[in-house]
């Protein structure tokens, strides 16, 4: 069970990093805005497998992307701040309300933007970045809903995660 969990997590992290890399080829309309394709993997991990997978995939992705592409500078700090706030709110919503994947994804996208802006304000000491919040959060919520639709589609197609092993064995025999 432990090896299986490790393998699945590594697989998901690799996918998330690939998605992050692919996303860098998509031109951005608004500076600072990302579609957040890698968030599909985090959402999938949370709703299909569980919170422990979600946590490891999210933070391992942030750290590995910092290690591989951006370095541990401002970008990494922004990314980490966004991920932390987003993770906190997502887990709160996931555990204590019956909000579905759409609401969780929208709130996660919003809190990611908010966390990034707060970290940016902390770095450059200028509260004027708050003026950027409405644009980014509206785009973020929209992209969050689209990503949630995609993730829900993937989850619908796949069999239940806990029964995965037995399904595989049945097909083989």
């Amino acid at each position: 069970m432990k090896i299986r969990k490790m393998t699945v997590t590594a697989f998901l992290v690799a996918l998330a990093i690939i998605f992050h890399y692919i996303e860098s080829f998509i031109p951005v309309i608004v500076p600072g805005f990302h579609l957040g394709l890698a968030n599909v993997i985090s959402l999938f991990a949370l709703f299909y497998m569980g919170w422990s997978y979600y946590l490891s995939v999210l933070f391992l992705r942030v750290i590995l992307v910092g290690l591989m592409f951006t370095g541990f500078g401002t970008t990494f700090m922004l990314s980490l701040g966004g991920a932390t706030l987003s993770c906190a709110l997502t887990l709160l919503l996931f555990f204590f309300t019956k909000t579905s994947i759409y609401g969780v994804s929208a709130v996660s996208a919003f809190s990611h933007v908010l966390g990034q802006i707060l970290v940016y304000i902390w770095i450059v000491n200028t509260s004027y970045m708050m003026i950027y919040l409405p644009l980014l959060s509206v785009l973020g919520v929209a992209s969050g809903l689209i990503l949630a639709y995609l993730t829900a589609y993937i989850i619908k197609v796949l069999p239940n995660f806990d029964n995965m092993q037995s399904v595989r064995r049945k097909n083989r025999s």
Partner: protein
Amino acid sequence: MVKRNQAKLIKFNWRDIVAIVTVVAITATVFVWTLFSMSSDSDVDTYLLARYHNDIICESLPIRDGATSLEYVISFRRDLQDGETYSNTYEDGEVKDVQATDLFNITDPRQVDGYYLIVTSDESDTFEGFSDLVGPQVDVKVYNMGFQVILEESPENVCSKQGFTDNANYPVVCLPNSMFFWLNSSSYDGPDA
């Protein structure tokens, strides 16, 4: 802890609407609060602040003498290179050749009314030779209880297009020239607070 059913969790329900509406409401509140806390009209204690890179060139240039507004142009200039000339943005008035350090000391409105302050790069402590100023000059006109960047050499001329402003605490930034202007009100701590 809520007991969950995976099939239900991927269906849109009313709680999602609540979550999204909450997010939008928070955004709107923060935006409105930021707008209102940022801009306020200029009052008696309002002065012009100018910054070049991280150095404050002047933090308390007067913009009014009692109830009447002052009217003058500050021209920030660097040394001319080949083929460059300074533009005249002033029509009348005595042209002064002052240093950036002198600009810092002006607090009395009568020292600037009707005059044009020309800041050159020579022997200046705070400007470090204007090495990064793109164009040869950036001109700021103070009038009507506010100010306007009337000339700057930059690719997009963003702050010229921004036009006149008399809002305190609302910055005008010329990024290519690394210049930053705003009306500093004593009732507000400033952008770096």
